[in-house]
């Protein structure tokens, strides 16, 4: 194994992804009886549901000639048939029928991956299955709580997953990337506090007595019709390894006690982000915006989803350009600034996971 010093390792522009971790494979509604294919952590996976409704993930390559099982069809109970020569596998990836012989070859299996459905997502474990403990799934409880409403979408981001994490751990970019919606100069000017505990990192930023940017003014007026005036704004970024970042965001009427814990005079949202490496240079970025007011308004759910979708489109464009620049400048590493503290703690945590897997390399 290559030995890398802790100080130099965090300057790696992009990282390989840990394998011994839960990643979101799909939204729960995406996985149906009709098989689908999705590349996760560099590996094509066939996803489908059994007759009983359980999600199944098999390597998307038949044991025989590697034909994609996702092009085949689901059969009785939990089985799927290869579209090429009709070999049938069960949900454990064991062959249950070989059409051209009376017996079953004892080696005929395809890898199956542990699956857990939680928080409206289907989570998958691509690494050592003996370590797949469901208690390690990151907390995204707002997604399935009665006290929160909202919806989200998936971005196919043409960049290494680490760049998305960097982007979410430092929100000063909002001032420049999202100037028409959530950006404002106070983001870069205000102080922030970074705390790392175990495999979690929190970055907290408060902006006191400021004008609400357009996105937040609209939300305030949804809850407080006709609202005018200054607000206190917060962003509390919560990272949980390997790649889930839930951001507690909101504004409240200035001076009504939000920093001390009384958010009743404000609006609160959670931006739920979880990023799944697709390849070393592309990611599935699952996000949702959850709110705790006007819970029964589909109008607001849709407006918020579409609004955030527009904002995130700006991030996507930047991340894609950044990945292209990284590829075009192989001889230059990153220069890190104080605003990168959160992102660098994330990298430190990911590097320790990779080291435990024996997969930490000097550069990816």
């Amino acid at each position, binding site marked *: 194994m290559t030995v890398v010093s802790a100080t130099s390792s965090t300057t790696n522009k992009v990282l390989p992804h840990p394998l011994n971790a839960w990643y979101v494979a799909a939204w729960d509604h995406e996985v149906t009886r009709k098989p689908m294919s999705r590349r996760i952590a560099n590996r094509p996976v066939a996803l489908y549901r059994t007759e009983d409704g359980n999600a199944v993930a098999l390597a998307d390559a038949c044991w025989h000639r590697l034909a994609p099982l996702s092009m085949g069809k689901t059969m009785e109970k939990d089985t799927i048939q290869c579209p090429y020569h009709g070999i049938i596998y069960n949900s*454990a*990836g064991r062959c*249950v029928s070989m059409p051209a012989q*009376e*017996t079953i*070859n*004892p*080696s005929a299996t395809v890898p199956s991956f*542990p699956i857990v459905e939680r928080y409206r997502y289907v989570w998958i474990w691509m690494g050592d299955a*003996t370590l797949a403990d469901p208690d390690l799934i990151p907390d995204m409880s707002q997604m399935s709580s009665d006290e929160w409403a909202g919806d989200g979408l998936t971005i196919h981001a043409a960049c290494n997953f680490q760049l998305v994490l960097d982007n979410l751990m430092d929100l000063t970019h909002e001032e420049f990337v999202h100037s028409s919606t959530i950006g404002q100069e106070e983001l870069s000017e205000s102080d922030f506090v970074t705390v790392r505990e175990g495999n979690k990192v929190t970055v907290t930023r408060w902006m006191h007595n400021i004008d609400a940017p357009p996105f937040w003014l609209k939300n305030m007026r949804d809850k407080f019709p006709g609202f005018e005036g200054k607000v206190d704004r917060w962003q509390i970024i919560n990272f949980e390894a390997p790649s889930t970042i839930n951001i507690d965001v909101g504004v409240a009427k200035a001076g009504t006690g939000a920093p001390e814990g009384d958010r009743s005079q404000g609006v609160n949202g959670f931006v739920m982000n979880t990023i799944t490496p697709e390849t070393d240079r592309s990611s599935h970025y699952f996000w949702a915006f959850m709110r705790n007011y006007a819970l029964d308004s589909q109008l607001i759910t849709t407006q918020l989803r579409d609004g955030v979708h527009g904002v995130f489109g700006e991030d996507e464009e930047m991340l894609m350009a950044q990945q292209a620049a990284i590829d075009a400048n192989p001889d230059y590493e990153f220069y890190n600034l104080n605003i990168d503290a959160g992102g660098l703690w994330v990298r430190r945590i990911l590097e320790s996971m990779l080291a435990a897997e024996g997969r930490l390399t000097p550069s990816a």
Partner: protein
Amino acid sequence: MAATNIETWQSAIVIEVIPVAEAIARIVLEPSLPIKAEPGSHIDLMVQINGESVKRSYSVVEAAADGTRLVISVMKAPLSRGGSIFMHSLIPGTRLEITQPLQNFPLRIGAQRYILLAGGIGITAIANMAAVLKRLKADYTLVYVGRSREAMAYLGELEELHGDRLEVHIDNEGSSLKVPELVGRADTGTELYMCGPIRLMDAVRRGWVERELDLPNLRYETFGNSGWYDPEEFIVRVPKLSLEVTVPQGRSMLEALEDAGAEMMFHCRKGECGLCEVRVIQLAGTIDHRDVFYSERQQRLSTKMNCCVSRAVTSATGAKADAAHTGPAIITIEPN
């Protein structure tokens, strides 16, 4: 990364060779390109027999977490093909050619219950699985069957590690395994993993079918080197190629035909794939089917055989053999 089925050859240094049971050696290897070895994986290894390099497969009994040490165990089998005699001659410092850990016998995590069945040297494929199930606190029973206590490798270590979960059956102590009773304990939530002599595995398979349990839950690995009968020298005739070849005790029919210049089709060379099938035209003796490709019905017909592992034997040992015939068995075939 995890075990694969791609043969990547590398060198390995022999670190230790110690006896662990009657005629069984524990061999510790240090591979030059270490990768993690999953339970159920094996390595292929080049052995030297009469100056010739030949490939043999050995299960990984245990391995360091990062794969820097691999342990295999080999039983000296004078009647088999000669690889084990070479392996028993190894000394520390010897350099061998080995593959990365290969995986054809994966352990599935998450079954309700497990029965692991090892017959004799078959423990090499099973021990690693048992250790993982123990670590996962799974519901498992490890059943270890042997002729005598002295011939059972790792018995003491397994007793210590698995306690009540280990069930031992020893022929010369009168505690032989009753296969129907064992299979009777399995239900639809049970997965049974086994490695051992073909007679044992066949008995379990019959019991499994009789109980109408799901066949995919019966997991086994065969390296094709155990038969119903001891190997004998026999003669194979191939009229189409004007060949008559003697197949010695330590060589397969496929190898003997290749040696004689016949161009043969094959793939797995362990009785699984069926590619080396030949048609049997005439038979003086009986066929010792050692493959898992044919169904029982097809094996009973004996109109075809997988020449990579299956052999012909004379009447003296074959229960269904032609009693009138003496001398070596003679089989006349047409190759595919």
